[in-house]
C-alpha cells in the first residue's frame, strides 16, 4: 500500500500568510491531494488558496451534501485522507449524512466547516444559529475541534489527519471561523508543531509476537474445517493480496466481511463465494461448520452475523488479528488474540506456514463442500433469472445484473453500488476482482450516495471507467450531481435497476404481511438523465444490453441505462440479512395479522417459497 502520510516538513523561515493559505499548506503537507468543496462565498478564500497550492485539487459538487460521500470513496480508494469543505451553519450540518456514512466505514475523511462568526454573548436558548456543529458530529467522528486562533490551526489539522489514520481510523470534523481564514499570521519553524514523530508512529507497522504466530499456526494445523475471514482492516492495511496468498498457500477457504467486499480474488482456488451473506447458503454453511477461524482485520459487525450464534457456530475457535485492541473480541471471544498490523502478521503467518507445509492437512473436501453450495445457489438463481417470465414483461433483476457484469468483468472498471436489493443482486455473482474495486457504504447502507461515490471515484481513479449499479429509489437522492458528470463529460455508466419500488423494504413487508408505502411511481429515468444532457436509454429486453454497453464503452462520456425490472422477485440472501437485523424481534405475528396475510392480494409465489427453503437451509 502506498503509505498515506508524508512526513511534515519543518516550515522554513517564517512566512506571512492568510488563514486560508495556512490551511491549504498544512493539508498539502499532510498528504492531502483532493478537496471536495462546496462552491460558496464563504469557501472562496480557501478555494483561491488551494488553486495556488501545488499538489491540491479542488472539486466542486453541485450540492454541499455530496462533498463527504465523494471524499469518502476517494479516501477508500487512495487510502489517504481526503478533505470535504463546506460553508458553516446549515450547510455544515448537511454533512451529517456523509459523515455518518463515512464514519460507519471508518474512512479517513476530514470535514471542514467554514463558520460564520457566531458572535459572543447571546444566550444559546435564544440564538440557535450558535449551535456548535462539533457537538452534532461528536458521536460520528473520531476527532472534532474548533480552531480558535490562527496559530492553532496547523496543530489541529495535523492532529485531525493523524486521528483519521490511526488504528481504527475514521472521520474528523474541524470548524474554522471565517475570521481566522481571512486573518494573517506568520508560520515559522518553531510555530509549526514538530509533528514528524507522531506521523511516523501512524505509519510504523507493528509485528505480531512470534509466540502468538506459532500458537495460531498450531491451532490451524489441528483444525478440521478452518476458514480465513478477511475484514476491512485487511484492505486498509494493504494486505488484500497477501491474505489471498496465505489462503492459497495454506489451502484454507477464505471468505470476507461485507466491509471487505472485494478483498478475495475470485480466481483464487480458495475463493468459496463473495462477502458474507452475499455468498448465501455457502456462507451460512461455512460459519456453521467451521471449527477454527482466522479473522484478519474483522470486527464482526451486524452484516457479518456478529460472529456469534445463532448464525455462527458457538464452538468456533477464533484467531483474531487487529491493529486496534478494542476490536479484539468485540463480538465473539478470541482463542488467540494478536494486536498487530495485518500486513506484517500475514507475512509472518505465511513464513511459518511455509515452514510447516509438509504437515498441512488436506482440506480440499471441506473447501469444495462450501464451493458446491455457492455454485449451486448462483446457478439456480441465474437459471431462474434467465427463464423468468413476468406478467408485465419486466426483466429479472439478476438477469439484468448478469448481463451487465458479463461485459465489465474483463475490463478494469471500478464499481459502485447503491440501493437495497440491488446491491444484493449485484454482489451475489461477484465476478469483479481486485481490491478497492467495488464500493458500497457498508456500515450505514445509506441510499443515494451512489452518484457522489461514482464521481469521487472517477476523480481519484484517473482513466478507469466507473460503473454504478443503483436502485430506482436510491437514484434520485443526489440526482443533482448528474450535472457534474455532464459538465466534465465523465465516462460513468449508470445502470438503474428500475423495479418501481423501495423493493428491499417491500420484500420485507411481503414476508411479514402486506405492502404499505413501498411502491414507487413508474418513472422513465432515461428521460430524467436526458434532461441533464446525458445520453440514456430505457432497456426492456436482455438482448439490448450487450450492444448498449458496447456503445457506452466506446463513448468517452457518461451513459445511463434505465432497466425495467420485475419487483416480484427477491434475492434470498435478504432473508439472512433480515434475520440478524430483526433478531429477537421477529416473533410470530399476532393471529389476527397472520390471518390478514392470507387474505392479502399478494400470493405466496414461488419466490416466497424459495426464501422459506433458503431460511431452512440457513438455520
Amino acid at each position, binding site marked *: 500500500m502506498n503509505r498515506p502520510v508524508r512526513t511534515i516538513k519543518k516550515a522554513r523561515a517564517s512566512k506571512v500568510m492568510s488563514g486560508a493559505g495556512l490551511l491549504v499548506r498544512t493539508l498539502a503537507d499532510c498528504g492531502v491531494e483532493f478537496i471536495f468543496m462546496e462552491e460558496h462565498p464563504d469557501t472562496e478564500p480557501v478555494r483561491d488558496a488551494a488553486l495556488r497550492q501545488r499538489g491540491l485539487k479542488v472539486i466542486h459538487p*453541485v*450540492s*454541499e*451534501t455530496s462533498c463527504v460521500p465523494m471524499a469518502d470513496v476517494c479516501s477508500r480508494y487512495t487510502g489517504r485522507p481526503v478533505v470535504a469543505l463546506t460553508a458553516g451553519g*446549515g*450547510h455544515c*450540518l*448537511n454533512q*451529517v*449524512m456523509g*459523515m*455518518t*456514512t463515512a*464514519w*460507519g466505514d471508518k474512512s479517513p475523511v476530514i470535514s471542514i466547516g467554514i463558520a460564520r462568526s457566531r458572535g459572543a454573548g447571546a*444566550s444559546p*436558548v*435564544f440564538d440557535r*444559529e450558535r*449551535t*456548535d456543529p462539533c457537538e*452534532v458530529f461528536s*458521536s*460520528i467522528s473520531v476527532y472534532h475541534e474548533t480552531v480558535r486562533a490562527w496559530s492553532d490551526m496547523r496543530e489541529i489539522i495535523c492532529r485531525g489527519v493523524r486521528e483519521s489514520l490511526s488504528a481504527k481510523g475514521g472521520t474528523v470534523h474541524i470548524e474554522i471561523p471565517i475570521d481566522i481564514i481571512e486573518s494573517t499570521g506568520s508560520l515559522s519553524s518553531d510555530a509549526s508543531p514538530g509533528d514528524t514523530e507522531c506521523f511516523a508512529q501512524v505509519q510504523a507497522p507493528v509485528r505480531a509476537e512470534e509466540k502468538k504466530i506459532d500458537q495460531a499456526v498450531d491451532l490451524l494445523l489441528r483444525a478440521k474445517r478452518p476458514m480465513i475471514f478477511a475484514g476491512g482492516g485487511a484492505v486498509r492495511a494493504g494486505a488484500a493480496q497477501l491474505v489471498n496468498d496465505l489462503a492459497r498457500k495454506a489451502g484454507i477457504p477464505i471468505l470476507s466481511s461485507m466491509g471487505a467486499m472485494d478483498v478475495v480474488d475470485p480466481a483464487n482456488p480458495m475463493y468459496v463465494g463473495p462477502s458474507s451473506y452475499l455468498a448465501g447458503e455457502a456462507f451460512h454453511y461455512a460459519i456453521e461448520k467451521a471449527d477454527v477461524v482466522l479473522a484478519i482485520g474483522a470486527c464482526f*459487525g*451486524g*452484516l457479518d452475523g456478529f460472529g456469534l450464534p445463532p448464525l455462527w457456530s458457538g464452538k468456533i475457535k477464533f484467531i483474531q488479528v487487529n491493529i486496534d485492541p478494542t476490536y479484539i473480541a*468485540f*463480538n465473539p471471544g478470541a482463542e488467540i488474540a494478536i494486536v498487530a498490523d495485518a500486513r506484517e502478521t500475514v507475512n509472518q503467518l505465511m513464513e511459518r506456514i511455509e515452514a510447516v507445509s509438509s504437515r498441512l492437512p488436506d482440506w480440499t473436501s471441506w473447501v469444495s463442500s462450501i464451493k458446491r453450495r455457492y455454485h449451486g445457489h448462483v446457478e439456480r438463481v441465474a437459471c431462474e433469472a434467465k427463464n423468468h417470465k413476468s406478467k408485465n414483461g419486466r426483466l429479472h433483476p439478476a438477469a439484468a445484473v448478469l448481463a451487465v457484469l458479463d461485459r465489465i468483468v474483463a475490463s478494469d472498471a471500478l464499481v459502485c453500488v447503491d440501493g437495497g436489493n440491488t446491491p444484493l443482486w449485484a454482489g451475489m455473482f461477484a465476478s469483479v476482482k481486485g481490491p478497492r474495486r467495488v464500493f458500497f457504504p457498508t*456500515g*450505514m*447502507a*445509506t*441510499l443515494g450516495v451512489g452518484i457522489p461515490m461514482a464521481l469521487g471515484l472517477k476523480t481519484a481513479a484517473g482513466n478507469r471507467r466507473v460503473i454504478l449499479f443503483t436502485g430506482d*429509489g436510491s437514484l*434520485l437522492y443526489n440526482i*443533482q450531481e448528474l*450535472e457534474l458528470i*455532464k*459538465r466534465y463529460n465523465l465516462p460513468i455508466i449508470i445502470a438503474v435497476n428500475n423495479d418501481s419500488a*423501495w423493493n428491499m*423494504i417491500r420484500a*420485507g*413487508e411481503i414476508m*411479514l404481511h402486506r405492502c*404499505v*408505502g413501498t411502491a414507487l*411511481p413508474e418513472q422513465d429515468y432515461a428521460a*430524467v438523465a*436526458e*434532461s*441533464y444532457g446525458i445520453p440514456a436509454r430505457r432497456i426492456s429486453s436482455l438482448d439490448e444490453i450487450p450492444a448498449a454497453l458496447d456503445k457506452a464503452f466506446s463513448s468517452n462520456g457518461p451513459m445511463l441505462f434505465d432497466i425495467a425490472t420485475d419487483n416480484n422477485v427477491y434475492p434470498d440472501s435478504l432473508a439472512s440479512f*433480515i434475520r*440478524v*437485523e*430483526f433478531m*429477537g*424481534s*421477529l416473533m410470530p405475528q*399476532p393471529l389476527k395479522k397472520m390471518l390478514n396475510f392470507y387474505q392479502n392480494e399478494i400470493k405466496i409465489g414461488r419466490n416466497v417459497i424459495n426464501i422459506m427453503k433458503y431460511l431452512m437451509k440457513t438455520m
Partner: protein
Amino acid sequence: MATYLGADLIVETLVREGVRHVFTVPGGQMIPIHYAIDDHKSMELVVPRHEGAAALMACGYSMAGLPSCVMATVGAGIAYEAGSLAFAWRERLPVLSLAPQVQSYKMKPIQENLQACDQDEIFAPITKFHAIMYHRDRIPDLIRRAVKIALAPEPGPVHLDTPVDVIFGFKRVSRSKKKRLFPDRRFRFEGSVRPSKEAVRRAARVLASSKRPLALVGRNVERSRAGEHLMNLLNATGIPVVVSSAAWSSVPGASELNLGHAGLWRNERGIKALSRTDAIFLIEADEETGRLVRNIVERDSGAAVVQTAGLAASVGSLVPVTAGITGSVIPVLDDLAAASGSFRESSHRERSWVPSLMKEKEVSAKEYLRVIGPAHRVKACAGVIEKIGAIAGPDTLIVCDGRMAAGTAMTTLKRSGLHNTVMCADDYAPGAGFPLALGMKCAMPDRDVILITEADSFKRHSRELQTMNRYNLDMSIFLFQDKDKKPKEEVDFASFTKSFGIEASSISSPEREITEMTARDTAGSRRGILFDITL
C-alpha cells in the same frame, strides 16, 4: 383485550395528538409502524424521495400550524434527516421526529450493528428534547411529553428513538391497562398566558414617553398568526416596525409604518439611522432582530428597551431591558394596545421620525438590491415578482427561496393580507423552499401555492417534483436561472420537470408570458406547473 405492537402504541398516541400525516422514507425497522398508520383511517403516510425533504415537508406542514411528524429509518435515514431538522430547530418549528434504533440490547454502546450510531447524540444539539423509548409502556407518555416540549415557548423539534424490539414486540393490553396508558385527560396546556398588568403598564409608559420608538418583530409573531394584533398595537401607537425575514408576512407591505426587513438595515448607514431611536420595542426577538438590536445598543444609543417574549428566560438575554413582559404573543399585544390608549397623539413624539426612516429605507433598499445580485437580473426578477404579486390573491401562499429571489421579493413584493408569504433568504438551509411549499400544500390542500425560486436552490430538492405529482401537491413554480452563469450543459429544467409528468415551459420574456398564464390560471386550471425563466 386487544394485542398491541409497540408500533401500534406509537401510532395510537400520534392519532390522539392529532397527527394526520407522517412524512417518511420507508425502512425495515418501521414496517409495523407503516401498517399501524395504514390501519388508521385518519392517518396517511407521505413518502418523498429523501429524508431531508421529508423533514422539510414536515417543517412546512408545521408552519401551517398542524401537528407535524417526520419519521426516518435507523442510521442512514436519520443521517439525511438531521441536516433538515436543524432548520426546524433554527426556525422554532415544533416537529416531532421519530426513528427506530437497533435492538435495545445492542445499542448504547453500539456493537458494530449495521446502521447503528448514537442518533440521540446527533439530535441532542438540534432538538429541545430527545429520548429513547426503551419500554413499550412508556411510549404514550414519552410521545406526549415530547410534543408538549416541542410546543412550549421557544418551540422546536424533538426526537424519539425506539429500539426495533420495542417496535415489533407485542402484548395483549387489557381495557384497564389501555385506560392507564391513554387516560382520558389533558396532557398539555393549550390556552394562552396573559402578561402581568404591572409589566404591561410599565412597558406602555416607556413607549408612551418615547420620542422616537422603534419596533423589531421576530418570527414567533408570524408563527402565532398575530399580525392583526400586532398591527392594532402599532397603528394605535404609531410605532414604525422592522421585521425579521421570518416575520415578513406579519406586517402588511402597504403599511406606512413598515420599515422592511432587518437585512435592509444591517449596514453602517442603516444602523446609524436606527440608532437615533430612544425606545426599542423588541417583540419575540429572533436571531435576525437580535443581531440588529445588539448593533443598535452597541452604539450607546441610550435607548430604553421594552422586550416581550413567551419565555421568561429570553427577556434580557440579548441586551439589558428597561421593561420586560412575559406572556403569549397575542394577549401581550392586545393588553399593550389596551394600555397604550391613544398616545399616538402624544405631543412629544418627534414628527419627522417615521418619515425620516422611510426615506432611509428607500436608500437601504436600493443598496440591498445592489448586493443580492447583478442589477439587470434583480430588475428582471423584481418585474416578475411584481406580476406574481398582482396575480396572487390574498389567500395564495407564496414561498420565496434563495438569496436573490427572496431578497428581491422582500423588497419589492406588494401583498395584501397577512401570514401568506414565507421567505427563505438567508441561505441557512439551501433549497428548503420547495419541500416547505410541498408540506404547506399538504396541510392546506385548498389553498393555491406559488413557489418563487432560483436554480441553485431548487436543485437541492428538485427530485421532489415526483412527490409533487404523486400526491397532487400542485403548485406553480417560478424558477429563475442565471443566463450569465448558466453553463450551456446545465440541466434543462423544463424537460426535467416534464419527465416527472408535470407541465413546464421555458420563458424568455416573462413580462408577456406570465400574463397568459394568469388567464389560464383564472380559467381554473389547477395542475402543477413550472416556469423556467432565464434572466
